[in-house]
């Protein structure tokens, strides 16, 4: 059985069709861009079904990290709780239907920060 005492699953946030709506549903506020949030994602995805993305931040008092893909039918992909004592750093793998911005949101000290990177999903075709 699923034993852990977790918070309620954020149903509404996982129905949002835009990143702003998803962030609002998750955090109740808008995110401000921050260069202290470092998103590592490939420029060109090797496989849109499995895109490795990770985030790390130097912001203090991080409580949550979320991943969003703006062109996906459901924009919110994953949202992680970071309890005290856990490092503000997560790696995971996400699906991307097509070329899109990947947005990572970090909740720290009660504020919400974000950073964005475009990841290209292509049929390929080679050259040199």
């Amino acid at each position, binding site marked *: 059985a699923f034993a852990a005492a977790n918070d309620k699953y954020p149903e509404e946030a996982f129905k949002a069709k835009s990143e702003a709506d998803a962030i609002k549903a998750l955090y109740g506020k808008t995110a401000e861009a921050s260069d202290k949030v470092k998103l*590592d994602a*490939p*420029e*060109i*995805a*090797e*496989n849109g079904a499995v895109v*490795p993305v990770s985030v790390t931040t130097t912001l203090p008092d991080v409580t949550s990290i979320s991943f969003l893909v703006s062109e996906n039918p459901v924009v919110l992909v994953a949202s992680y709780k970071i309890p005290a004592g856990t490092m503000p750093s997560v790696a995971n*793998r996400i699906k991307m239907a097509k*070329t899109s911005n990947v947005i990572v949101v970090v909740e720290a000290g009660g504020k919400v920060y974000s950073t964005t990177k*475009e990841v*290209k999903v*292509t*049929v*390929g*075709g*080679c*050259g*040199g």
Partner: protein
Amino acid sequence: ATLAGSLPRLARSADSAYDLDRFGNARILHMTDTHAQLKPVYFREPSVNIGIGSMQGNPPHLVGKAFLDRFGIRPDSADAYAFTSIEFEKGAGRFGKLGGFAHLKTLIDRLRSDVGAGRSLLLDGGDLWQGTGLANAMQGADMVDAANLLGIEAMTGHWEFTYGEQVLRDNLERFKGEFLAQNVFLTEEAAFNDAKAFDPASGRVFKPSVIKDIGGHRVAVIGQAFPYVPIAHPKRFTPDWKFGIRDEELQKLVDGHRNNDKVDAVILLSHNGMDVDLKLASRVTGIDVILGGHTHDAVPQPITVANAGGVTLVTNAGSNGKYLAVLDLDIAKGKVANVRYRLLPVFSELLKPDLAMQALIEKAREPHAAAWGDKIAAADRLLYRRGNFSGTMDQLICDALRGELHAEIALSPGFRWGTTALAGQPLTMEDVLAQTAITYPETYVATMTGAQIKDVLEDVCDNLFNPDPYYQQGGDMVRVGGLSYACTPSETVGKRISELKLNGGRTLEAGKSYKVAGWASVNEQKGTPVWDVVASHLRSGKPPNRDAPGVTLKGVDGNPGITAQQ
């Protein structure tokens, strides 16, 4: 580092052409993208190599006269023939073929003995094992032998990966140099399954770099493999590996060599392609010189790129064995004080072939010589491939695909390798294989809608003309047969391709289905290998199709990446 180089005046004499002034205290020789061309070749450089955005008008996006002007090359000279497409056939008659490993061997030995033992290094930038029927049949083993005899001390890779992990590892077992790739990592699954890796902790599959002693100075050489192997080629060849540019990991590596290993110089042996290297050089600090390949740009002088730590020189050394780069470094304690760079065209007629290499090549070719040596047809005109949108050789392949597979439209990949055939020259199976020899040669016939065809063209076009080089992959545009279109390179993806028309002028309709033939699909196919399709088309003796390639360019008037002669 500062650039103090200029092009050597090539005298047309075997004795003086390759006498270089002595400079500095360490000589690095760099070759790249030979594509297994063991014998001397004709290879016509592009007449269309368009740069857009910040790349417009800058090397490597210069062709023809603009190229000569930028690099101070005399028109009508041997160098003009080697570096541009201007009057190619005339130049071919005067100056002959270039490259060939027996000739390269002679030149390399001479340039190394000129500076004395222990003062030079020979590096190969990859695409060494693929490009001929022989290399394909031997899965690159012939090229490992040639590389060992040539004395290559380190290499990185691209097409090498298309033989799959087992063959790659078997070949590397026999390779006497180092295979370097800082940007290849195990997938998460492979790491969980304890797949073989150079460094299991980081998941790095190959040794990332090596420190060489050259004349008492410590030089770090870092390998950068082609970042997009699993996208540009079938993923099944490299299921356990992830690639990418990974400039953050690269920065850590450079910093480690500088701060902990106390090296005097850092060289990046790169298969990124030149535009990617130019951007990387602006972001990563601490690299003295990037010795680049992949985009097959023959750039005679390094490009100086400023970054937060100083400057980095970026080079690209052409393809097909046509050139040997000579990087002479004046190394002081902990830094490169000065640099001289030359990209020497390897004029085969000026170099006596090395006998041992010649014997090795003949022995390797012998089992296939009879089968591949017969004349199938004669070249009806100059047959070349290189160029952003089309080449006569690819038109021939598209004709073969449409004719033999009874398709309305043909698609053929925009590869930058493949040699040039002069008009009237006999074409053999070996020549056909030099355009087609890959490990996924199967042809296909598919039904595609007009919208799907446009999407493919848009996608490939973005790989070529995305204003951010990190989103490019470094090929040329997919070639089309039976179809014409207009292209606006400066537009954004989805808006570059317009006016799609079938032969005869009918508009390609988005919702209608068309029969399309092609080859080199990243999806598994079961059709006849493309070389057999092309050979059978040539044997059929059908009159050559002389239609002009149907690509109209828009918004690039005055771009020095296009010559008037197409």
